[in-house]
């Protein structure tokens, strides 16, 4: 009859020891960790991991801690508390960029003035491959996918509300007029394509 006695005299329960191991694993991980991985690493069964996670969920919860334990995409991971989200956003903030490259400006101008356009269409006018530039503009949220040419066709890109905000436009209709280049979108586009063809390869 010594097992109850042992339970009483032991200050650290196995569950809280295991919880320490689990929090260590979680602080090292770059991905959410499934219960099975935690169990394999700690060499215990998943039921014990469940108990440890329960303890940790209690400890790492909003209000109580800046670190919050969360179950996401089938795994467990630490995140910053909602209360600390602003401070965290500041930590990851990058310095404001002053301007855009010529390639980005040309691509944006084409998409803004000539309407939703596919990569090959933009490439034809600019006379160079535009994949990298398009990807960059999508990443910055200045353009976004806006449908396809047809069911299996190329993706069309259009400017975003963020683009309008940054360029101080209430809408695309507020873009400065370019009547000298053509009477309407079709004419302007034809002219740009004609010029592009004359450009030396």
């Amino acid at each position, binding site marked *: 009859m010594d097992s109850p006695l042992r339970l009483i005299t032991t200050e650290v329960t196995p569950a809280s020891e295991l919880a320490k191991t689990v929090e*260590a694993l979680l*602080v*090292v*991980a*770059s*991905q*959410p960790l499934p219960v099975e991985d935690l169990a394999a690493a700690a060499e215990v069964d998943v039921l014990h991991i469940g108990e440890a996670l329960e303890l940790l969920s209690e400890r790492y919860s909003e209000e109580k801690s800046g670190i919050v334990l*969360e179950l*996401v995409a089938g*795994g467990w*991971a*630490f*995140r*910053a508390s909602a209360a600390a*989200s602003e401070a*965290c*956003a500041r*930590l*990851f*903030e*990058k*310095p*404001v*960029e*002053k*301007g*855009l490259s*010529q390639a980005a*400006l*040309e691509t*944006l*101008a*084409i998409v*803004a*003035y000539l309407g939703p356009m596919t990569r090959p269409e933009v490439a034809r*006018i*600019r006379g160079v491959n535009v994949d990298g530039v398009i990807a960059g503009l999508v*990443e*910055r*949220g*200045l353009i976004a996918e806006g449908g396809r040419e047809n069911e299996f066709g190329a993706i069309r890109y259009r400017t975003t509300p963020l683009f309008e905000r*940054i*360029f*101080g*436009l209430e809408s695309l209709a*507020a*873009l*400065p007029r*370019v009547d*000298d*280049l053509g009477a309407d979108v079709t004419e*302007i586009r034809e*002219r*740009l394509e004609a*010029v*592009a063809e*004359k*450009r*030396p390869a």
Partner: protein
Amino acid sequence: MVTPVAVRELELDLDAFEGPFDLLLSLVLRDELPLRELDLAEIIISFIEHLHAKGELDLDACGEFLILISALLELKARAMFPEEEAELAELEPEEAAEELARRLAEYRRAKEAANWLRERLEERRDYFFRMGPAPLAPKSERKLAPQSPLKLVEALRGLAVEPPEPSTTHMALRFPPTSQFLDRWRALLRRRTRFDFDQEVAGLSRVEIAVAFLALLELRKQNEIAIAQAGPFAPIRISRADAERSLSWTAHSA
């Protein structure tokens, strides 16, 4: 009665080797013991201690030892600085010795530092930390300052500019007509009796200067001018034919 110190039998107890000196030598010569691992100063100290213990100086032993240890030193130096043999050879013996000592000391320090790093690595081998981004870290956004829509217009207009016609200027040198300079020099000489060629052609292209000089030669041929130069690279002086006499003075006074 003095027992000669058998240098070859000198017992060594070094960090990298334990045993008689001759065994060490043969191991080194067979490339079985890297010289760079050997601390030669340790060997020297062992030898001196050995002499010291005997309480008398055996010159023969010292001579033999000196030869062996300097051979080892040279071998070690060559092993350590293979590509710099030549560089060291150019130095005076004292300078070379100093340079060698400096480099050996530097290497010795590097080895000590490496040992410290090894211990440190051993201490910390059980410390794990996250080497990638956190699983649920906020995304970092690239922010852009407000932009003028006129930049878009500018970019679009730039795309509408017809490319220039291919240039052929590089295919032929275009010479200005000599007559242009004949007229110019005659007009100048009507106003002035003499001028410096260099001053008048300053700012012209090389081709234009050449044509301008051809025009001068043409005027000289027709006896309209005199050309004089005080020496190589001195200014070329042009004067009206009627002012030639005063110009000869310039030439003599140079």
